[in-house]
């Protein structure tokens, strides 16, 4: 077992992990932050997407020890300081960007990474950015709408397909 220390949602945390402990296992099982989901555990679905040092990564395809000293953000750190939903989360709610909600933490983290790099993405750019996030309920349409709305853009031009 090795010691690992990182900052998660602004708080310094540490623990003792095996070499093989995945970052998502450390976050869920040791830190009890279960908002980061494990959908496929094979790097396909993106339900475990988080930010490490500001970059979108799949927490099931990274070892906890690789995040030693890193700044980690998960879905639990996304709400506004007063506990209200942030602009992306609110847009998902307003535009019905989720049904069962299982993929939603990863979708919100992916959307937030996109909007930081590209504050006014086109519909195509949003769809391309979400290639690594799978949703089995919505057909993606309302997720794309929500992200467009969160970026302050008009969503009326997006016709249902």
């Amino acid at each position, binding site marked *: 077992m*090795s010691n690992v220390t990182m900052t998660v949602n602004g708080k310094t945390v540490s623990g003792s992990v*095996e*070499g*093989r402990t*995945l970052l998502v296992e450390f976050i869920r099982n040791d830190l009890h932050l279960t908002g980061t989901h494990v959908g496929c*555990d*094979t*790097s396909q679905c*993106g339900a475990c*997407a988080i930010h490490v040092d500001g*970059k*979108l*990564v*799949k927490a099931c*395809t*990274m*070892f906890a*020890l*690789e995040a*030693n000293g890193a700044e980690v953000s998960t879905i639990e750190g996304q709400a506004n300081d007063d506990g209200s939903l942030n602009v992306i989360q609110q847009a998902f709610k307003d535009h019905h960007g989720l049904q069962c909600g299982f993929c939603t933490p990863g979708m919100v983290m*992916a959307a937030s*990474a*996109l909007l930081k790099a590209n504050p006014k993405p086109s519909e195509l750019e949003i769809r391309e*950015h979400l*290639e*690594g*996030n799978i949703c089995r309920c919505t057909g993606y349409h309302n997720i794309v709408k929500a992200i467009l709305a969160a970026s302050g853009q008009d969503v009326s031009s997006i016709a249902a397909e």
Partner: protein
Amino acid sequence: MYNFEFKQPKTISDAVNALVSDEAQALGGGQTLIPTMKQRLANPSTLVSLTAISEMKGICKNDDGSISIGGGTTHADVASHSDTFFGLKTLAEKIGDAAVRNRGTIGGSLANNDPAACYPAAALSLGATIVTNSREISADVFFQGMFDTALEEGEIIVSVKFPVPSSSSYQKFVQPASRFAMVGVFLSNFGNETRVAVTGASEGGVFRWSEAEAALNKTFSDNSIKDLSIDHKDMIKDIHASKEYRAHLVKVMTKRAVVSAS
């Protein structure tokens, strides 16, 4: 996955020393190796992460006009860097998905030499030089078949040196589930020489399509290859595409690459 001892050296020499033991393996971005270990298809006793070695990251222009990319540079960094050129940039920005591109590295991709990976096509087409901790290897001899390279045990790709062509294009027919190349063609036009490398298609891994190169060296036009065909005998066959279909795609993607690089 089986457990292992995790090491994260800060320098290339420390990494080389850590890789001396028999069962040690280097870990790049882990986007292939970690899923492989989960399936217990790889079982290293020591995993030597290369991600903390700052001298292996970044992109720079060399005095001779070529560019060098550190082996630990991620696909996202290659895609967004101003010193990369069209073919290489478009290749890097289409690998996997956004999250994979933030972890996966060029050194990891080349060392693994997956028959459907994108980077081997760029390295072979551009005539890159693979710089390791101990020597420089020409791309023409680096790729030795599916998942096989000229790398010795414990040898690390420190950087990759790419000559800059006058024009280049990477055309990838995406396997939609995995986003690997069903067939990918990287074309490099150096003015006096055109090189065409194909990934995703052959049982032997990445290869150069010499007939297309010869035709394009005479006249650089998609018309030059319209009467060519490529033998499907050694092509990959799987549930996604037959040998014949892959051979057909090689020609289609090559034509698109010529048009795009014209």
